[in-house]
């Protein structure tokens, strides 16, 4: 069951729009004929706490939570949040780690140093992708675009085309915010 499924772990902060991200991605995959399941682990996440989400797709509906050491892809929409979910990385270092450059400091804790973070990431995977979201976010003046940029970025690894994702985005947003999301998606797809 596990072997036939592609497992994505997504983490970030409450309020970033991760649930919407799951809906858009899950819906696009369903349209492609996959069985998809998503789930969320969060407490008072809408109050800035951490959120961990799972998306799994394949020929059969999988468990909503994967076993540790089994994720094909781990996405962190806030840089250091990835430290919370590295237990899902495969021991053979083949999981793709996708890390957005957005950094949210806290009042009480020192933020991990760039070098330390990079050592840890390379310890866990041979496929670390750092996604420079901040220049695009600044251009659009909208922090919520991080997810959409990441969505565009990961399309290259998934059985989804630009059209598939745009179609799903069209269903989830309206008006000026739809336009912004479409642009952010294309920026993400175009990133190196």
């Amino acid at each position, binding site marked *: 069951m596990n072997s036939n499924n592609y497992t994505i772990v997504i983490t970030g902060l409450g309020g970033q729009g991760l649930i919407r991200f799951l809906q858009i991605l899950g819906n696009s995959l369903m349209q492609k004929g996959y069985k998809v399941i998503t789930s969320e682990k969060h*407490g*008072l996440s809408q109050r800035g706490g951490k959120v961990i989400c799972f998306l799994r797709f394949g020929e059969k509906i999988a468990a909503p939570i994967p076993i540790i050491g089994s994720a094909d892809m781990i996405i962190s929409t806030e840089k250091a949040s990835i430290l919370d979910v590295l237990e899902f990385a495969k021991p053979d270092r083949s999981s793709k780690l996708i890390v957005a450059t957005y950094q949210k400091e806290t009042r009480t804790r020192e933020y991990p140093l760039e070098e330390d973070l990079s050592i840890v990431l390379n310890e866990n995977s041979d496929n670390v992708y750092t996604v420079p979201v901040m220049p695009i976010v600044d251009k659009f003046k909208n922090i919520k675009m991080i997810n959409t940029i990441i969505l565009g970025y990961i399309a290259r690894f998934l059985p989804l085309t630009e059209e598939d994702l745009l179609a799903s985005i069209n269903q989830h947003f309206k008006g000026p915010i739809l336009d912004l999301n479409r642009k952010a998606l294309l920026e993400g797809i175009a990133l190196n």
Partner: protein
Amino acid sequence: MERSKILQGQFGEEFFLLGNVAVTRGALESGINVYTYYPGTPSSEVGETFTELFKDAGLNWVESSVNEKVAIEVAGAAYSRGAKAMVGMKNVGLNVASDAFFALATTRPKNENSAMVVLVADDPQQYSSAVEMDSRYYLKLLKVPALEPSNPQECLEYTKLAFEISRELKIPVIIRLVTMVAHARSNVKVGKLVPPKLNENFDLSPEVNVASRLYFLDLKQDQIYNRMNRALSKSENSSLNKIEYKNVSNEFDLGIITSGVSYTYVLEALESLNIKAPVLKLGFINPLPERKIVTFLKQFKQVFVVEENDAYIETEVLAIAQKNGVQTKIHGKDPFSYSKESSALNFVGELNPTKVALALTKITNLTPITNLRQINGKRYETVRRRPILCPGCPYGTIGYALRKAVKKLKLDFAKEIYFYQDIGCYTLLSFSPYSFANVKYCMGSSIALAQGVAHTDDSLNIAIIGDGTFFHSGIPALINGVYNKAPILVLILDNGWIGMTGQQPHPGSDNRYYQEGSNKKKVDLGRLLQGTGANVSIIKHQKGNDENYLHNLEEILYEKGQSVLEKNDMQVIVIEDECIQKYNQRNTLEVRYVDEELCTNCGLCYNQFYCPALTKKNDIAHINSNECLGCGICEYLCPNDAILGGNNNE
């Protein structure tokens, strides 16, 4: 989006649906007439969806009730008069509803169409609950059938089946969900919508509806020996209780019994250990199918029972095994030992495939394909993030003012001050940096908790409760306080909405500002309080432009605290300041910025007023314009007038 579209789905069409929304669709495919609920994570989306669809779907009645007890009573009587009714709540809500539920469970409506489904959503790991409570033991107390789906597709199907069973047997049927089912999204193939219909003529005969010794001893006989007996044969014959992977075997002579989402964890765990085992998946969880379980047990030397939280199924399986003389060794949580050592799984916390796999290694001594223990032992120092109040949250302002008032009261009166918390966003004031909590139980308990200490000590005892929670179950405790002359200070934090679960309305919400509000009447909280004879003061914040608010708030908190300490009276302060998220849906407030010339970096704002948008940057106060929601409090606070509204032309 997904909510409105579920009404359009044609037979066989596939949608990507949340478990809770699939439940709604299942009810719509059953011709539901009435849905009532009290919001509570993880059950709220069912009620929200029904509220949105109420008129379009042609339901006879939908309401977000004042609490779960009222919700089940409204739906229960509708069921008696011939409606297909459903009520929704979270696990702890069932405690509130349970008093009425005991009578409801025994009633036996005489109307053909009558059907009643009770949706209860448990929250293992108590992600958003005050306690981690397994609702399943209520099934034994109430003696009602129950179904437990394991994914969104089953949410839809089991809901339909629950309506069918209830309609046939005339007994309420529980649908039990857990967070990982209620909040999972997946492909769901929908069936056919059934338009609601309700007969004008109905039978409300007392002998089947009036809970009293006169009728209910006989009705209870019927409930247990007729209706539950028939439910048992359904359970024995139901495809919801079935053996998956019947023909596989393993060297350990091991079989597995499980239910709900745990079933999916079992499959994953077995695969990670590279073994195969037959699995008895129980979807019909009360009454449990004794014969089926015995037949299954007899096939194995050992059976592992996998379920979330309590050992509900395991205890039943142990009893069934004993009764039928089955010698099979049963693994699980070992419910009689109260010992972690002898059990494979823990009573506490949410299950996942990793925990199940590790338990299986304990039972079989197998090594998993990937070294789970090694991964499990690997932990990184992460950035801890506490849940925080939103920027501009009225409760942050109250926390700030209360801190100052309390400090002064302590200084002036040399008395201890204790805080009693309740359930809502303001619960976050319980923790650092505010720490306004000494005792907290459940919905509506703060006001009575304060009385328990106030009557036995000369300290100042302050209850903190929100408006929604006050309406839900705070009112009796307040009346108790007035009646008993309890020397307490009650703070009713009135943000206008049930903020925590997504700003749903309650009876005190402004009915101009929610969808179904045109059919509702706002209950005036101030007049209600005055009616009890309590000493009530009301203070209101005019958002974004109310320079004296902070000062006035501090002053009233001090004054009323002083009154309780000096005169031993009871004081109630209502603090009206709307949830900023909700307020900003209708209004635009000015984002604040710091004038770098005027800021002296005194630190008052970023050190003492805990707004997430306020930080120190380059040795000066800084407001993150992406986060500020424009409440204006920091502007009133700044002693140097360095915080301003409007455009920062940097």
